[in-house]
């Protein structure tokens, strides 16, 4: 009871000095002179604009990944008190005084620094010796490309940090939490899922476990590996959408409903529009597809040329196009075919699904029409025109049936913004469609609109929604023109649920395609293994100081060799084991397989998918894969020395070799340090000496 009186209370804290030392070294290597250069470095120009948008709470869409990474960077800016006022337009531009460079770069640098102790810990957790673990950590520490990538406002180091953390967490069998910064993280996640699945499969085979406990295991894994990551993923988007509530540069690619939920922008225009479209309504119709660009149904007084260049004839009636800009000629009036009036009656008579209407062009008061004449650019489809009666036995065919595609019942009312509508021509059952082609000069390069006779399903190019809307009041054409020119007023606000916003945003992110062009420093995935390319990140405006993304040549080569040796040895062992020849004890074999599975598997899942991608690729995309490959080096080395160096002499010779090899890694690190940190400035000859490969692009100033 009173034992504590006899013995002193002792608190023993076990501090692994290795770990501490590594962390400190990591921090020094990544944080040293962090705010130098005080200029925009490479992709900072890209991420910086998002940070600014976050600071200003302006909505944006970025297809490079979910918003978590951007949010982390923005957090740095927030902590540093950044107001978002900087024009991110040019690599190498000097930062103004209001940009907290240090804190913007701090988080990626910290993540990069912590990768060093993480690497150590992973190898320890894989039951390798401290020596091997130390080796892995030092290799990561001295990898020039990882240092460069960590020291700027870029996301790869954060990605690598979370990937390593996830692997470590799984190894420690904690509840795994997957963070995702870029979609590349997904591949590591798949690997972990596969490993977990495999472990569970072995567990199924364990007859000692009852069915109930098996179910519990299954549920627990499902929760940890699937539900939690999904929930976190959703929450990132939730924060993203909550933070960004103002309209901004990327509004246009979202649907009208989404735009209306943002403050400013479309919401300002559409606030307070009448919801239900009625006979006599004045509307603008936006094509739902939004490709090749958003546009509105449009007409103007010009007619189709009598003969096209290729000799085909047209109806010579008034052109109907899709126009990518707001214009008074985008206004149409919904008319009841049975009545003459173009104003909304009191009470308004709403248009419902299946009703037949005429669409009258507001400025020219001609009727939207289509007939069996080939369209100008899509000869398989019908021409759409605004009808002009030339008295040539070509009657007007201007009745359209309104079909609400996203209706809930067949009596739904046509609603502003919310309803996606198809216009089916009554005479020919053609559907009003945006063909996507742009007309020649006579059509002012506007987009072609056609009547599609054989409608294949419900493609978005055939769907239109009402964007701007008001109830028409003017009886006379002159008054009406004035009315059409005036802005819409009236107020109602529309709120989308989070899930609706999320699905739309997610879909846009996945389908958004940036033009696939080659960049000066882009490379193909095959170049990465041998590091045939580099990326010039920054060049001092006057001196020869410069920063390059350039790896440690020795490390890259050794990593490749290690992967090769690992694969060959594993195949060899596998074949031998199949013949019941065991070269090593069972637990050593298990260790070899699991360590290799994680490292080689991690390399493969982070590298091979790039061969299937069609986007512009850069060397830094390889860094996550490289990290896994580097971890493999000490594993292979230790295996070689433990199992293949039988005699003591061999062992000591091997150790000597390792020391020599390691000093060469250090030597290369030191050689390339000037272009990793950007200082000191090198002379022309020194720079020329650094060009170890002809394909490297070291910038040399002409005298």
């Amino acid at each position, binding site marked *: 009871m009173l034992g504590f009186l006899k013995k002193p209370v002792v608190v023993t804290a076990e501090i692994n000095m290795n770990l501490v030392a590594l962390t400190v070294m990591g921090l020094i290597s990544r944080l040293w002179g962090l705010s130098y250069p005080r200029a925009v470095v490479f992709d900072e120009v890209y991420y910086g604009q998002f940070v600014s948008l976050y600071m200003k709470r302006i909505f944006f869409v970025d297809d490079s990944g979910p918003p978590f990474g951007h949010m982390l960077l923005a957090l740095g800016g927030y902590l540093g008190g950044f107001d978002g006022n900087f024009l991110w337009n040019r690599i190498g531009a000097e930062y103004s005084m209001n940009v907290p460079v240090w804190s913007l770069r701090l988080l990626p640098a910290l993540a990069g620094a912590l990768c060093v102790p993480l690497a150590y810990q992973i190898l320890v957790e894989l039951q390798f010796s401290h020596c091997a673990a130390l080796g892995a950590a030092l290799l990561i520490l001295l990898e020039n490309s990882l240092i460069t990538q960590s020291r700027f406002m870029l996301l790869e180091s954060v990605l690598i940090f979370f990937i390593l953390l996830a692997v470590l967490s799984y190894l420690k069998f904690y509840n795994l939490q997957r963070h995702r910064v870029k979609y590349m993280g997904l591949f590591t996640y798949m690997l972990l899922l596969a490993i977990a699945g495999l472990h569970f*499969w072995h567990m*199924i*085979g364990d*007859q000692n476990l009852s*069915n109930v406990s098996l179910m519990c295991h299954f549920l627990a894994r499902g929760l940890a590996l699937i539900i939690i990551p999904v929930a976190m993923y959703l929450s990132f988007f939730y924060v993203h959408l909550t933070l960004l509530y103002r309209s901004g540069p990327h509004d246009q690619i979202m649907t009208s409903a989404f735009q209306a939920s943002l403050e400013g922008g479309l919401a300002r225009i559409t606030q307070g529009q009448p919801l239900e479209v009625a006979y006599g309504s004045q509307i603008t119709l936006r094509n739902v597809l939004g490709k090749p660009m958003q546009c509105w149904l449009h007409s103007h007084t010009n007619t189709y040329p009598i003969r096209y260049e290729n000799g085909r004839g047209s109806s010579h009636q008034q052109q109907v196009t899709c126009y990518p800009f707001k214009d008074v000629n985008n206004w149409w009036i919904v008319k009841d075919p049975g009545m003459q009036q173009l104003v909304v009656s009191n009470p308004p008579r709403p248009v419902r699904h299946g009703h037949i209407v005429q669409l009258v062009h507001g400025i020219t008061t001609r009727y939207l029409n289509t007939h069996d004449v080939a369209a100008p650019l899509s*000869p*398989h489809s019908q021409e759409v025109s605004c009808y002009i009666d030339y008295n040539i036995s070509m009657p007007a065919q201007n009745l359209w049936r309104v079909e609400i595609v996203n209706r809930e019942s067949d009596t739904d009312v046509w609603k502003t913004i919310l309803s996606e509508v198809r216009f089916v021509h009554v005479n020919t059952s053609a559907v009003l469609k945006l*063909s*996507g*082609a742009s007309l020649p000069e006579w059509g002012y390069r506007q987009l072609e609109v056609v009547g599609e006779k*054989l*409608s*294949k*399903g419900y493609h978005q190019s055939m769907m239109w929604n009402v964007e701007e809307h008001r109830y028409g009041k003017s009886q006379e054409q002159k008054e009406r023109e004035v009315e059409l020119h005036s802005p819409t007023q009236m107020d109602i606000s529309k709120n989308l649920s989070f899930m609706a916003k999320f699905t739309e945003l997610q879909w846009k992110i996945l389908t958004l395609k940036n033009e696939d*062009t*080659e*960049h*000066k420093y*882009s490379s193909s995935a095959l170049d990465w293994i041998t590091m045939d390319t580099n990326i010039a990140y920054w060049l001092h405006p006057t001196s020869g100081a410069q920063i390059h993304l350039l790896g440690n040549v020795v490390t890259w080569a050794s990593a490749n060799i290690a992967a090769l040796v690992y694969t060959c040895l594993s195949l060899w062992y596998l*074949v031998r084991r*199949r*013949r*019941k020849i065991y070269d090593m004890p069972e637990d050593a074999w298990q260790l070899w397989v699991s360590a290799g599975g994680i490292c080689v598997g991690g390399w493969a899942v982070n590298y091979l998918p790039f061969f*299937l991608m*069609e986007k512009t690729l850069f060397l830094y995309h390889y860094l996550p894969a490289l990290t896994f490959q580097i971890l493999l080096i000490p594993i292979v080395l230790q295996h070689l020395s433990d199992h293949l160096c039988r005699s003591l002499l061999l062992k000591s010779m091997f150790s000597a070799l390792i020391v020599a090899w390691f000093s060469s890694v250090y030597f290369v690190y030191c050689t390339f340090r000037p272009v990793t940190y950007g200082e000191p400035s090198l002379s022309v000859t020194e720079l020329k000496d650094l060009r170890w490969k*002809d*394909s490297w692009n070291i910038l040399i100033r002409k005298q």
Partner: protein
Amino acid sequence: PRPASGQDYISQRATRPSRPPRTPSPRMRRARPGAARGGGPRMPAAGGGQAEPGPRGGPLRRRESRRVPGGPARPAAAAGPPPAAAAAGPPPAAARPAALALVTLLSFASRFHRLPEPPHVCWDETHFGKMGSYYINRTFFFDVHPPLGKMLIGLAGYLSGYDGTFPFQKPGDRYEQHNYMGMRGFCAFLGSCLVPFAYLTVLELSKSLPAALLTAFILIFDTGCITLSQYILLDPILMFFLMGAVLSMVKSNSCADRPFSASWWFWLSLTGVNLAGATGVKFVGLFVVLLVGLNTIYDLWDLLGNLSLSLVMFGKHLLARVLCLILLPLALYTAMFAVHFTVLNKSGPGDGFFSSAFQSQLIGNNLHNVSVPEHLAYGSVVTMKNLRMAGGYLHSHWHLYPEGIGARQQQVTAYLHKDSNNLWIIKKHDSDTDLSVPSSPVEFVRHGDVIRLEHKETSRNLHSHQHEAPLTRKHFQVTGYGINGTGDSNDFWRIEVVGRKTGKLIKVLRSQVRLTHVATGCILGSSGKTLPKWGWEQVEVTCTPYLKETPNSLWNFEDHINPKLPNISLDVLKPSFAEILLESHMVMIRGNSGLKPKDNEVTSKPWHWPINYQGLRFSGVNETDYRVYLLGNPVIWWLNLVTIGLYLLITVSTAVALKRGVQLTSELKELSRVVLRGGGQITLGWLLHYLPFFMMGRVLYFHHYFPAMLFSSMLTGITWDTLLKFCAAFLSPSTTARKVYGGGFLALVLLIMYSFYLFHPLSYGMIGPMASDPSSPMAGLRWMDSWEF
């Protein structure tokens, strides 16, 4: 001068007919080799049969084991005959040949019914019929597929008396007096063989007659399979070899208990032959190579684990497989190319795709027995061909680079066809004297000279400057610059011959030449990337600042016109067969990857296919036309689709049950073996023939799914048979069980037949109003809006 743009030119030279509006699909091309990836559940075990007696042997062995009434390992069911087996009814020995004969007969009847209809060119017949004619006429052509399929079509036409004179201009052309039935009949014959092949394969895998019959009925009564077999297409030929390979693989697996016997050798080598055949028709055949490869690896792995087998024996096994499955197919594949190049010895539409050396072998080509001035001189008019495989001619035309892409000057591209816009005049860099005046002396171009290249049609100089190239941003743009040959110093190029000393003359055709831009030091090259629409989809030409020596940056002079010089007959270095083979493959791969969908073109997506979302119009558009529409029998296809889900469910539950060590009766064990092994093998086949299409960038068509559909149908046969047997096993009393099993089977077959009765006009031709019209015979059958009949 006319702006001979690429597209105008293609329509003249590449003999691609412009299609009438709305006949779908230009053509389907390319299997991306090696793109196949897939991990099926498991491969069937084949080898090592001795160690583990059991239901692995051939049919004989199985019947033996069944005759032992209720072995000791069968506690519950020992009392009576095992229910499932009873339900299946052990088929009498005569039943199998009779059933085989029946399905074969039905298959041939359904494929040959109304074969001559319609008597005009349907869909891709325009390509493959034409290529068959090329073989008969011995005219060289280029196609993105290997030659075997077209060679066989040509052979069938030749044997049946077709003389190769029909032009196959465009779909809808009437055959008139030309004999086309031989070619169609040949394809229909191969297409009919698919049914017995599938029947035998399923029988071998499941040992169950009903399963095999079900599969056979599915394939017999599928309108899609019938339609695809009735025309002059590559698909029936491809699928014939593909199914042949699967069948022989399965057969040789069941011979595993008597290795090195005659039948073992026979099936193994037959597998190899079929692999060569499948790959020789289309590169899609590589997927079945992969399937057989995986199967073989599994097989060998099994043998390796069999310790009673000495390493020497294992080595023999290995060697036998290397011989039959690698060397034999390779030899056959090479042989068919040898035949191809021997038969086609006349110049034709495909010449420009190949190197100058190759062209010189073709009778009628302007390089055949060529006589040109030997040494390059100033004032000569020349064409320059890029030395990379399938590299084009240096080309320019009046069109400018569009705004925003480098300087707005005239485009310079590489173009694969022969064209007057490929002609360039060699001029001195510093003097502009007209060298074509007969009196002026001849001056030869020498290695190391600085020259100017003037485009003959547009009189602009080959020019480069420090603007980014349109696609390869790391390189400099190459343009045509200047008016009437007067430009600036950026038009100067140093001409150098590889491995030569300064001052030597430059030989036409033989010298490999490099052009270095004097001002920037970059080298003229072709990147191999296809320009977008504005560049007429020709190949990009750039000036590369990287001085690496690759064929991309080397050129040779092909045509050479200089009236002042004597023509000398030149024997161009004859290319070896290996070079020709490699070159033709590079050209095919390039051609395949060039088949990208155009902007705004509605293309078929792989996920459309299994749900039978949209078919292909083979013939006829209007109400009065004889219309044929390639569409699977929807009942069958949707059954297949549901079955895949069912199969996954059964597999997972069976695998978990086995892993949990649930005790199963021997009948159920046998069933689960069929599901896991046989079904797994088929599923792997389906995955391998379907998934890779998701990763392909090229234009895809509905009919690409049909090889996968064959596997899917076999899976349906196996799965439903197993499912019904499982049900029967649970309803133990034998009469009910028998009823359930028999009734279920009958219901499925009747359903399939009735749906065929409904949809048969799709293949055998529809005339009259469209299906949207209530008076049409097909009214009410347009179940999906996307079907267009």
